[in-house]
């Protein structure tokens, strides 16, 4: 049976979304290839000089680009960035990111809902980065979000699944894909999130700050695939106390 990730009517075989920051441009293609990545985020910035190298020239053919609205401090700024990103001409996907807290870089769910509503109406495929709150996630879905992207831990921290229990609530209650974004630091943490039933993992810093980024991209790919298979297989049950032998206790030594 095919197991595809479907976001806004587009289907993907890969469940590893790569954040493209912090890599040398030359490494981008290798990381994407090793990670089996089919979707990668980008940020928008002022183009102050012409003729310089551009990350789009390093993106392999066929990759789906997910521009983010990084730098936006409110819904209006996110909308402005999203429209500009679309005008560059790389599709309708957008990852909404509204942050006005410079210490913890936590997303503002309220402003994010507002931006989601505006952009979804304009035909964007909206993927909001969010603090994992069930009510906010429901509002985002009602506003037209094609997926929600709850954080595992603060951006760039590599601290892992700090918000595990709240992400699980989203998995249980929200019908659009749940993509854990921000804070995943190790493949084992990505695997654990996938085992819980999240639909995909986005990672950037965990790969970019590894000693061997190409090898770490492969490690994430395997971990995400393993977690997905484990989820589909249905995890074995846990005994809270006592034990249960895995080998039959024939007892012939005592007969």
């Amino acid at each position: 049976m095919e197991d595809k990730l479907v976001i806004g009517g587009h289907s993907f075989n890969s469940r590893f979304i790569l954040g493209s920051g912090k890599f040398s441009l030359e490494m981008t293609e290798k990381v994407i290839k090793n990670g089996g990545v089919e979707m990668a985020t980008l940020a928008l910035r002022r183009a102050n000089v012409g003729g310089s190298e551009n990350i789009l020239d390093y993106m392999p053919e066929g990759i789906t680009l997910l521009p983010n609205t990084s730098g936006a401090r409110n819904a209006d700024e996110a909308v402005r960035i999203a429209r500009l990103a679309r005008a560059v001409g790389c599709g309708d996907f957008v990852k909404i990111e509204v942050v006005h807290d410079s210490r913890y870089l936590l997303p503002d769910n309220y402003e994010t809902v507002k931006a989601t509503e505006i952009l979804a109406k304009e035909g964007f495929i909206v993927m909001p980065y969010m603090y994992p709150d069930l009510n906010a996630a429901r509002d985002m879905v009602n506003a037209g979000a094609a997926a929600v992207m709850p954080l595992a831990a603060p951006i760039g921290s590599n601290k892992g699944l700090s918000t595990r229990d709240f992400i699980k609530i989203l998995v249980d209650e929200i019908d659009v894909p749940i993509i854990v974004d921000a804070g995943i630091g190790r493949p084992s943490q990505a695997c654990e999130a996938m085992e819980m039933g999240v639909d995909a993992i986005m990672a950037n810093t965990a790969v970019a700050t590894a000693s061997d980024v190409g090898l770490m991209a492969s490690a994430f790919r395997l971990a995400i695939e393993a977690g997905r298979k484990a989820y589909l297989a249905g995890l074995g049950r846990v005994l809270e106390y006592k034990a249960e032998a895995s080998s039959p206790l024939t007892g012939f030594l005592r007969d």
Partner: protein
Amino acid sequence: MLLNGERVRLDKEQSLYDFLRGLDYNIDRIAVELNYEIIPREKFREVVLTEADVMEVVTFMGGG
């Protein structure tokens, strides 16, 4: 005029397209906002710049 927050002199009356090419921008890699309005790429040749314009030229970079 203002280009990405910096004051720039327009030497002569020129189209947005010629201005951008003069600065060696790769037209296919950028988006332009002129006076807070996005200008579609197809219109770059039609738009004529003035000294009062406020322009943003943006492109993509790596980012999560």
